């Protein structure tokens, strides 16, 4: 996995925005390397900066509110952050596609599913109407919505929520993107549908050799789909490694505590661990570790000096002064 060149490299990404006249920090140093044919899970609680990371990649940060401070996002070695809007637009939907949490809101209610697929194809692939239509039909069959053209002519409100998410996936993969960003795509679905959509995404990834950034707050979903995981806390990536290593041998106390908070049948009857304290205030810019105020193993050093995000073991990055001790928690 790590042998090939990464498709997308995000380095030290910092983003801030104005909140009630004060500056608030949305991302305080995000480093992620994303590869083709690999599902990279990005896990963190709400407000930790998952969606902002995703939106930064496709250049869709809300313009007025968010200010990019520093960092770099490279796609196939070329910097994305300095690109013009027009150049970024040619990437979006064709090379990097996105699916979202609530398909009901992210599909336009006034147009048929077919039209919403066709317009994307026509924009990026330069096909004419009938070619685009034929392709849209194939795509719907591919995501399991049949090829009788019924869904093609349907409006979003005529579909069930699982079908809507499949339709959104069809739009996303319509131009054979190299990379797919999936922002909590299963959170609004029930467990059965969730499993089906995860399976579909996995199949499509294998078939198209796509890279996937799978955003979720749910570690059990991440465990099911991801090859590699990055854990984000308060706008900073605190740990990144393969899914087996992360679940087997976490090297950041936050990850360790997150893992302990997953309900587990084998630990039935025991209390679920909750992480004490509150998430770091976005307006704060501590000189020490962002997790130190809630960390059960924090020492003086943790409040004084921010740990660098480095490899502690082969292919296992962590931003903790005491990474080796985290698994003992």
């Amino acid at each position, binding site marked *: 996995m790590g042998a090939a060149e990464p498709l997308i490299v995000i380095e030290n990404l910092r983003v801030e925005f104005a909140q009630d006249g004060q500056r608030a920090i949305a991302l305080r140093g995000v480093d992620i390397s994303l590869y083709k044919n690999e599902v990279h899970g990005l896990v963190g609680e709400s407000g930790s900066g998952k969606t902002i990371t995703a939106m930064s990649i496709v250049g869709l940060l809300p313009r007025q509110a968010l200010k990019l401070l520093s960092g770099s996002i490279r796609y196939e070695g070329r910097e994305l952050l300095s690109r013009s809007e027009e150049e970024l637009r040619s990437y979006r939907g064709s090379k990097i596609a*996105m699916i979202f949490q609530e398909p009901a809101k992210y599909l336009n209610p006034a147009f048929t599913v077919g039209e919403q697929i066709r317009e994307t194809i026509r924009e990026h692939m330069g096909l004419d109407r009938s070619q685009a239509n034929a392709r849209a039909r194939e795509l719907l069959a591919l995501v399991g919505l049949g090829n009788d053209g019924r869904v093609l002519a349907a409006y979003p409100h005529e579909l069930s929520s699982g079908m809507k998410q499949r339709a959104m996936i069809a739009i996303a993969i319509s131009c054979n993107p190299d990379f797919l960003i999936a922002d909590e795509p299963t959170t609004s679905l029930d467990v059965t549908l969730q499993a089906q959509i995860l399976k579909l995404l996995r199949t499509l990834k294998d078939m198209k050799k796509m890279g996937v950034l799978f955003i979720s707050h749910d570690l059990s979903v991440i465990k099911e789909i991801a090859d590699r995981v990055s854990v984000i806390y308060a706008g900073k990536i605190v740990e990144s490694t393969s899914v087996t290593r992360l679940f087997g041998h976490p090297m950041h106390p936050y990850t360790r505590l997150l893992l302990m908070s997953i309900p587990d049948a084998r630990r039935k009857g025991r209390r679920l661990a909750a992480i004490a304290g509150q998430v770091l205030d976005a307006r704060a810019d501590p000189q020490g570790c962002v997790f130190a105020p809630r960390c059960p193993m924090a020492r003086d050093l943790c409040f004084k000096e921010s740990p660098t995000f480095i490899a502690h073991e082969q292919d296992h990055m962590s931003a903790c002064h005491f990474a080796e001790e985290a698994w003992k928690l």
Partner: protein
Amino acid sequence: MNLVKYAAKRVLRLIITLFIVSTIIFFVIRVIPGDPALIIGGVDAKPADLEAIRARLGTDRPLSTQYAEFLWSILHLDFGRSMISDEPVTSLILQRFPLTLALAVLGLLIGILIAVPLGVLSAVKRWSGWDYLGLVLSQLGMAIPSFWLGILLLLVLAIRFPIFPLFGVDSGAGLVLPALSLGLARAAILLRHTRASMIEELSKEYIVAARAKGLPETLIRYKHALKNALLPIITIAGIEFGYMLGGAIIVEQVFSLPGLGRLFLYAIYQRDFPLIQGGVVFIAVIFSVVNFVADMLYSIVNPKIRLE
């Protein structure tokens, strides 16, 4: 098939509306002070003459008889004759209608053609110079009375620079100024709604999705957002159109146009009962038809709205 059922339902509703409306207007005009016989005969008329006029008009009979007769005749689409000119009410209305229709259509067109592009521009370039200009213009448009705007238009474009005729509609040019003063007022109202509606739609999630698909911003605005934003615009435009079809009294007065507004106004002055009744029924029908068309447009613009 469904549409036929729907239309039948609407027609039934229209009939009930018409019954209620005509009943109310029948009694209201007879309860308010003013006797058509006195207006026809004049204040100096002798009581005997007045009696004779009342007998001729039929207003001397009991109200219940008059009401029964009124209902019976409108069932046969007969609205009677004007008490003043003795012409059939239907032909009086139909004579005036083409002018009013032309004015209403032009006024609505002008309103939409100004309001929608400016409203979209305002919404897209929010808090920019364009937006403030749009807001100020729409504030002015709503605050300026249409008679004043009409007179101003006449002063400038008919007298100072005689481009358009001062009055009369013998040529189409005569319609321009009245349509403009009607349309500018509609534009003011529609602009506000277009702006608000576009701003709302542009903040929806499907816009983010459209951007993530790499669609050009113009397509996102004019295809994705505008189609959804049209809904409230259609509602307001429909209501405004309905009002204009009932006649634009002030604009007709300023430009001395023989439209429905003045016809109905004089009918009320002269207590011309059949003409008032016919006018009210006519306006109710027009409103129902316009509403029906607006509802049809609704279901085209937003497929979620089913005709039921």
